[in-house]
């Protein structure tokens, strides 16, 4: 066990996953990721690049990824905003890379070192057009390490940008980490073409796996990469059938991630009160579940590790028997909308929302869950109501 900060474990996980390029612009509270990568990459035969801003950073990452590197960047809200255009580009051009966003209080420059979970919707909707995000949310330093490795695996095997959403607490917290390096076979590498270069080669053709076998630049294939709608040759097209099919395939491909990342489920089997929370709030909620159980309440925790794409079916079945669903998050109400979309009409939803830079406490979760439970039993019959509690 090694004592590490979340941001240090993030860098260690990236290196373990084979990341050899970092392009970034340091910003609190993600700066230690850049600092660590600047130390680790040269020792591991990689390249660290500090760019002039976040747009250039992700541009460099995309270039390195096309050249065959496993590549990443790390930023926080303001920088994440600047990266949105390139994130869309990476999605449409199917470029594997990992983007770490350590969420701080926003909007704008907001609260640089205070915790928040305010970029959750941005991770999915920040870039324009019909694009489906993959976003992971770790809740411990160990999980930062593990999910960074998984983020690279997902991005490589599905050829798509993967976002890791940390909150400031997870990023700066120190905990023991087991830095076991997974065996090489379990770390995916992007699928490469088996056919030789030639005029008939089509880099963006895909088979049943839905993933095109795009070669790395510089190994003898001539091909074209674009953010315009393109055909299987990689060249721009305005053919609406081709564009529609491309969007459909990309969405179907990214949805494969839903079966690859399991949530943490704690005492959910007989839970009347289900608490849904992610990141550091998931830890708080877990402690609250213990307190509620000690008071004789059947409470359970469902902590998604994958926020996007939303695991609809998993959530629906996990929450089917709950009388009350409490969704706790450090924002003014973001992911709760997804939970509401999925279970509204079947159960009561009681969001516990706190924005402004401080953590949700165990006490707050406990008392909110207790009052939610009381109110729902008093109002038997009406099952589709939502009762918000906003703190601060």
């Amino acid at each position, binding site marked *: *066990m*090694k*004592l590490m900060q979340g941001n240090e474990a993030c860098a260690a996980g990236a290196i373990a996953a084979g990341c050899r390029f970092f392009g970034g612009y340091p910003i*609190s*509270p993600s700066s230690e990721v850049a600092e660590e990568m600047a130390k680790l990459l040269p020792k591991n035969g990689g390249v660290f690049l500090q760019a002039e801003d976040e747009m250039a950073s992700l541009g460099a990452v995309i270039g390195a990824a096309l050249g065959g590197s496993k590549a990443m960047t790390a930023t926080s809200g303001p920088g994440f905003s600047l990266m949105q255009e390139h994130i869309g580009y990476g999605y449409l051009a199917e470029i594997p890379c990992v983007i770490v966003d350590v969420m701080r209080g926003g909007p704008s420059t907001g609260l*640089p*070192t*205070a*915790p928040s979970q305010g970029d959750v919707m941005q991770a999915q909707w920040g870039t324009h057009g019909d694009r489906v995000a993959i976003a992971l949310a770790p809740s411990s330093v160990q999980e930062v390490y593990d999910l960074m490795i998984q983020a690279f695996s997902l991005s490589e095997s599905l050829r798509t940008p993967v976002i890791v959403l940390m909150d*400031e*607490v997870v990023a*700066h*917290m*120190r*905990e*023991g980490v087991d830095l076991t390096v997974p065996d090489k076979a379990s770390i995916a590498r992007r699928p490469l073409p088996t056919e030789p270069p030639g005029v008939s080669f089509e880099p963006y053709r895909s088979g049943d796996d839905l993933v095109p076998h795009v070669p790395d630049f510089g190994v003898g294939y001539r091909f074209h990469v674009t953010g315009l709608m393109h055909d299987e040759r990689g060249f721009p097209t305005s053919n609406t059938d081709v564009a529609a099919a491309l969007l459909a395939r990309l969405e179907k491909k990214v949805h494969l991630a839903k079966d690859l990342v399991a949530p943490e489920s704690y*005492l959910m089997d007989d839970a009347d009160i289900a608490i849904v929370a992610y990141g*550091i709030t998931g*830890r*708080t909620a*877990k*402690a*609250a579940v*213990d*307190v509620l*159980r000690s008071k004789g309440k059947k409470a359970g925790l469902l902590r998604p590790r994958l926020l996007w794409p939303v695991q609809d079916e998993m959530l629906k079945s996990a929450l089917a028997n709950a009388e009350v669903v409490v969704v706790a998050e450090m924002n003014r109400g973001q992911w709760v909308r997804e939970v509401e979309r999925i279970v509204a009409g079947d159960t009561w939803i009681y969001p516990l929302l706190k924005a402004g*830079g*401080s*953590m*949700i*406490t*165990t*006490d*707050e979760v*406990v*008392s909110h869950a207790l009052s939610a439970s009381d109110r729902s039993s008093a109002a038997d019959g009406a099952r589709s109501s939502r009762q918000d509690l906003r703190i601060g």
Partner: protein
Amino acid sequence: MTADFSRVAIRLTGSGGQGIALAATVLAESALSNGLHATLIQEHGPEARGGATRADLSVSWSPIPNPQFQLPDLCLVLSDKAWDRFAKNLVGRDDVGLVADRERVTMASTADNQAGGIVAMSFEEAAKGRIGSKLVTNMICAAALARLLEAISLDSLSDAAERRSPLAFREKNRAAVKLGWQMMDEYLETHTLPWRVPGREIGKLASGVSGDRGANTLEAGGSALTA
């Protein structure tokens, strides 16, 4: 299976620059090498560069679900500002152990500290007088707290302090750890602690001595990260 959420909650407070974060890091690291679980969260705002700041360390024999707590079991105070912000409202509680620097904290400079429930020790004076640098005060304090816990060995603390020290301070920090340990040793021989010491029960933590101190104390106010 429910998680065992017994743990000892230790809050280290002082002014930015006193090395609070490093002392907490060294304690956390040595806790790990003694087979304990540890979590450490701290303030990263402008307070960490001047105002009153804190680091919240939890140690336990079992995994720690929630790294934040409102009410500490042990609270180290190294400045007046930190006293006002973090310790003032804890005076007189027999379930919170206050340990304060006698010279830096006005409230700890009186003769009847014991009556007020404060363990007052001259950490900074010892650092200056016996090691030759007040910069090692943080390591003296870390060792004094570790001595109270009785679950972290002197050797592991010494090693952690050395690993985390710049080259020029390795020897001094090693000496500081030894000194802090001795100071608390002597204190325990000559005094009865004015509070129940949940920390000293850590050896029995598996039976849940400490409980979840974060769970029933909203009145302590604020959250773990911003008060």
